[in-house]
């Protein structure tokens, strides 16, 4: 698993979860989660509140340590590395160059005290960009891409609407051209028309940039629109997984059937 490969070798998974489990004391977070994520692929993790979705996401980015199992990630040099063996400096570097993390609450993913431009530029400066003009150019071009008026570049995100904040958060994550994006309920708390626009944007960006993504959501419509494959969780375990259309159109597990049936017909 750890021998090196060509960096553009897409036959190897980008991210592998192996038997991941997490206990918070006697409280179960999630258990025995295994899957592989390939380059350009989007996996949705669905389930109700408390099913272990967010725990799984935090395990995947190394924010919390697993109680058992491991997470393997193929870095740009082609080597597949166990996250637990990375030094913290390496993990941080990956987290701000190769990964993105989109929080449900944009205020947690953004730096609310500084302007939108500084929010987008932060990752660039963190990896050594020291030319103000070029940082700003990049910030402007990313604001354009996420459909935020470039006039608003010097405004604080506090003055932004919920949908704009979420788009700004996405721009801030994508500016270093990461390969993997982890999203925790990216459309949560937004009204329906704003959700639709955001989903449109996400779908386009994921396709344009050939991003791999893990999207945690309780909204099956989001899963259907964004993801290729789907993982259904309940009580901390994966109960069903497969191609998104297959699982949603022909659910096998009673719980999945219940989830699908609980969507209001359009």
């Amino acid at each position, binding site marked *: 698993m750890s021998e090196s490969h060509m960096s553009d070798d897409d036959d190897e998974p980008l991210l592998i979860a192996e038997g991941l489990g997490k206990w918070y004391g006697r409280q179960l977070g999630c258990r025995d989660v295994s899957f592989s994520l390939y380059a350009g692929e989007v996996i949705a993790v669905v389930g109700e509140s408390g099913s272990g979705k967010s725990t799984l996401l935090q395990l995947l980015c190394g924010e919390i340590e697993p109680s058992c199992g491991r997470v393997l990630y193929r870095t740009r040099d082609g080597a597949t590395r166990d996250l637990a063996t990375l030094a*913290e400096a390496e993990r941080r570097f990956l987290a701000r160059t190769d990964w993105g993390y989109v929080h449900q609450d944009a205020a947690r993913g953004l730096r609310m005290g500084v*302007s939108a431009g*500084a929010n987008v*530029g932060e*990752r660039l*400066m*963190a990896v050594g960009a020291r030319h*103000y003009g070029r940082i700003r150019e990049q910030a402007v071009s990313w604001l354009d891409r996420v459909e935020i008026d470039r006039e608003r570049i*010097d405004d604080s995100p506090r003055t932004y609407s919920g949908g704009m904040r979420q788009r700004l958060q996405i721009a801030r994550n994508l500016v270093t051209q990461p390969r993997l994006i982890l999203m925790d309920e990216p459309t949560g708390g937004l009204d329906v028309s704003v959700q639709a626009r955001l989903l449109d944007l996400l779908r386009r960006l994921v396709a344009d940039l050939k991003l791999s993504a893990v999207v945690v959501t309780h909204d099956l419509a989001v899963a259907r629109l964004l993801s290729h494959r789907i993982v259904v969780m309940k009580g901390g375990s994966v109960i069903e997984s497969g191609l998104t259309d297959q699982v949603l159109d022909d659910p096998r597990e009673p719980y999945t059937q219940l989830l699908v049936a609980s969507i209001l017909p359009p």
Partner: protein
Amino acid sequence: MSAQGNIPVYNFAYLDEQTKRMIRRAVLKAVAIPGYQVPFASREMPMPYGWGTGGVQVTAAVLGPDDVLKVIDQGADDTANAVSIRKFFVRTAGVRTTTDTHAATVIQTRHRIPEAPLAEHQILVYQVPIPEPLRYLEPRETETRRMHALADYGLMHVKLYEDIARHGHIATTYAYPVKVEGRYVMDPSPTPKFDNPKMDHCAALQLFGAGREKRIYAIPPHTEVVSLDFEDHPFERYRLDGTCALCGSAESFLDEVITDDRGGRMFVCSDTDYCEGRRAEQPAAVAP
């Protein structure tokens, strides 16, 4: 008070020997790791926080009976803070004091570095209110420590970016962040950025004490100190555009003094010793 000499009502320089040892250990560690903030067990001092309790403790720990002490506050030897701290050490340590920068061996300062170049036998002690340069960007102490440990300093440039975005130039004029010996980013205490270049390869030992925040850090002599900037917005010194009304200096850092309520004002050197020295050299100067 009667001039009874220096009967040791207090231990020499107020602090007890164990405390001074503890502070000296912190100072030694700080010198060994330039720019790194060393925690120390800051004591209550007989003055309020914000009046230089950190600087006073460092001075007390490095002061010897043969030292000559100078204390400045915003460059001046005769303001309340400077006078009271000088008196404090005269009373508790019986050391000689001076206002002459060249004659001093230990200089405690609030917000300025003297205009006269410092020499190897001198120690400059800064009073520091907030030692953490990342504080206003990252409120969590656990996180800022980790950022220092990993040399994760992108955030510092976010602050400078924000300055340029708002004001068109780097508008931070004091407490301007510096990188020490290519490693630690450090807050040079609220000195004006005019003084930043003086820290670079300074011959004197520079010690920083923050009493409330319980931190000591240091720049050893002849250490590289670089002010952070952008390639297209390089660091610039800032000084008011004018000359000193008393000594005529066009190089020194100036204070603006309001002289009446009709807009009258004058500029004078912030460093009083430098200004007096220049005036003594030119007896022909007109009295103001």
